[in-house]
């Protein structure tokens, strides 16, 4: 009998965890839908609830180790973001780059100045401000799919998010180098490390893209085959990047970018990653929610509110300021500004990566920063939803119109 029944205490396993996160997340999402909120909010809130329960049951290590799901999903999102980023368009339409630089710079400056005003050390303030520049690509892409949004605002938002993610990663890498310098006075590390991280990511991205193209040319040109290829290569790229201690964010963005943007090469089909993306998204957002230390809210003070407002103002004003250059109307401009609001997994991962390398960072700006992310987890999707609606780019509900009409001649 003893070897038939499981031994106590019961051990939770990954499949069970994955299943629970997926189903619980899905139900949270549908509940949010009933309340006319974006599904993401439901996923994240389920995560908020699961986090403390997991702690109480001693399951925290399992959730922390579930980082593999997060890395994979984020890898996929960044790859898609890189592929949607269009360098040729940016060359033709200079207002895009202008908007990208403006909104990133204003956001950085506003958050940086706010943190300095609260007596945060410049390097730490700089690093936090650099992360604040990013918009959550996960939230934006998910909302784009969910609201079936398309048009100038959507396309521009996607490209701007790729740009501010790129700027932020580069800036963080450089600032970390100078932080090393300040601490150890080790010039080699200070210069070599950023160089290694930046160039290394680009090389990995380019190499993965080249390899993918070569395989794509050799196999059948069907979307099923290419779908499998891309999924596998994205997972591998995430693995290679972490193996080489490179930032997954930059490496995957570069992979996506190189996989798309050559004038001649059209080896790789543009397949939709949505089917598997949806599953991963749910788990990703639940885990993100679960890994948020809600206790940070208790420690947060005026600084968090000030940073939140500074960031929001920076993004919004940056988008508005450059809108006339791109020929956007006032509603489109406001919609674009709103679409840039979300903060989520990407910011959280960047924060943890920095906190690991730079211990004082978590202590000084941790509660503030995490509070901002937690609040934006909820407000961000709402901002995007309203932004797309304002710009008239999300799919309106029009099924009612078909039914309302009575049969008969000449209505």
């Amino acid at each position: 009998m003893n070897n038939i029944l499981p031994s106590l205490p019961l051990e939770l396993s990954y499949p069970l965890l994955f299943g629970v996160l997926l189903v619980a997340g899905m139900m949270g999402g549908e509940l949010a839908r009933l309340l006319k909120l974006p599904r993401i909010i439901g996923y994240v809130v389920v995560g908020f609830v699961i986090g403390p329960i997991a702690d109480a049951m001693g399951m925290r290590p399992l959730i922390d180790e579930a980082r593999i799901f997060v890395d994979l999903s984020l890898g996929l999102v960044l790859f898609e973001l890189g592929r949607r980023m269009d360098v040729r368009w940016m060359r033709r339409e200079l207002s895009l780059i202008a908007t990208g630089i403006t909104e990133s710079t204003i956001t950085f400056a506003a958050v940086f100045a706010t943190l300095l005003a609260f007596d945060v050390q410049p390097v730490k303030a700089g690093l936090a401000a650099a992360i604040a520049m990013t918009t959550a690509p996960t939230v934006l892409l998910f909302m784009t799919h969910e609201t079936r949004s398309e048009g100038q605002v959507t396309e521009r938002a996607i490209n701007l998010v790729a740009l501010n993610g790129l700027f932020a990663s580069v800036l963080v890498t450089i600032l970390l180098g100078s932080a090393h310098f300040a601490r150890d006075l080790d010039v080699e590390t200070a210069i070599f490390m950023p160089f290694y991280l930046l160039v290394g990511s680009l090389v990995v991205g380019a190499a993965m893209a080249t390899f993918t193209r070569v395989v794509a040319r050799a196999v059948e040109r069907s979307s099923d085959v290419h779908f499998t290829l891309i999924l596998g290569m994205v997972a591998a790229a995430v693995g290679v990047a972490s193996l080489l201690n490179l930032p997954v964010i930059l490496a995957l963005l570069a992979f996506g970018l190189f996989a798309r943007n050559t004038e001649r090469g059209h080896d790789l089909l543009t397949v939709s990653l949505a089917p598997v993306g949806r599953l991963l998204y749910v788990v990703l957002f639940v885990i993100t929610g679960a890994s948020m230390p809600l206790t940070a809210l208790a420690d947060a003070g005026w600084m968090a509110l000030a940073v939140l407002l500074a960031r929001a103002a920076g993004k919004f004003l940056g988008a508005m300021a450059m809108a006339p250059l791109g020929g956007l109307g006032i509603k489109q401009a406001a919609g674009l500004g709103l679409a840039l609001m979300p903060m989520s997994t990407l910011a959280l991962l960047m924060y943890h990566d920095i906190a690991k390398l730079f211990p004082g960072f978590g202590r000084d700006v941790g509660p503030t920063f995490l509070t901002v992310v937690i609040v934006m987890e909820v407000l961000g999707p709402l901002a995007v939803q309203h932004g797309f609606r304002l710009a008239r780019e999300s799919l309106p509900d029009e099924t009612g119109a078909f039914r309302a009409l009575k049969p008969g001649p000449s209505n």
Partner: protein
Amino acid sequence: MPLDFNRSDALTFGIELELMVLNTHNYDLSRGAADILPRLAKMKLPGEVKPEITESMIEINSAVNRKYAELSEQMVVIRDAIVGVAERLNLAVAGGGSHPFHRWNERRIYPTERFEHVSSLYGYLAKQFTVFGQHIHVGVENGDDAVYLTHRLAPFIPHFIALSASSPFFQGEDTSFETSRLHAVSAFPLSGHMPEVETWEEFNRFFDEMAGYGIVESMKDFYWDIRPKPEYGTIEVRICDTPLTVELAAQLAAYAQTLAADLLRNRRTEPIAPLYRVYGYNRFQATRFGFNAMLVYPYSRVQERLREDLLKTIERIKPMGVELGTTVALEALARQAERSFNGAGWMRETFERNRSLADVVRMQSERWAEVPRS
């Protein structure tokens, strides 16, 4: 209330083209019309650019022209302007009768009162109607001439189908037809051809009757292949797929102009009814087999291959072409017929090479934008 037929100068002509608006990451249709149109409105163009029923379409109109060369030049100017605007918005535009793989349920109705009414009346047919056609207007001096030409151009409808056909793919599949677009048109209750009236007065009686039933309010409610357009003082040939290039669009218009000139000078007197007995059959043959279609001739009762009939017709109207200045266009069309090559053939070849419909559309948009080598 009789429809007034506004007189216009005989044989002036112009065209309308419906174009696809595409995104550039997977070359699906995109709802870009609303972004393109306001930007084009600020430019000075020889024609007009207008919204169409779904936000993935734009319509361009040429001005009224007398000469093929003028029309041809004008179309290039308009084309270049649209391509330029689209590029800045990261959109692409292309010719072709239907989009090879879009899903009709994803289309969005352009927000005007008329389009929203059509959409609520016709349900999915309205979105299914995201197809792209070329309309050719030829000016006539009075309503009787309009009725006459509408009937007498009917036997040439298969020629226009074969020359312009460029919608072999629909919803992601090869339909085996040269043009699948015409099926989307046929689904509408008032499609087909004009009834066998012989004068403008008779036509007016027919129209009043239909209006009396409450079925129609204006000429716009008739989705015929050829119809009189009293407001413009023209007849409108609506059978063509939007070709893959503006050059072909202008050539097709020149063919219509030359045919009309010939028909007006050498008046036909045979009875009308037989024309429509074979009309549906010939039309089907052309949509399915293109240049290789076997056409039936109502008066002689012989069958002949479309290609030969087209080449003979072009040969016959050549002198008229010299008078009108359409020789270059007629010759180009004859070359196309000799090679039995049209947009549908080009699209199928492109698909064979690339095995990806997205690539076919991408190359369609490149072809639309390019200046031809000649």
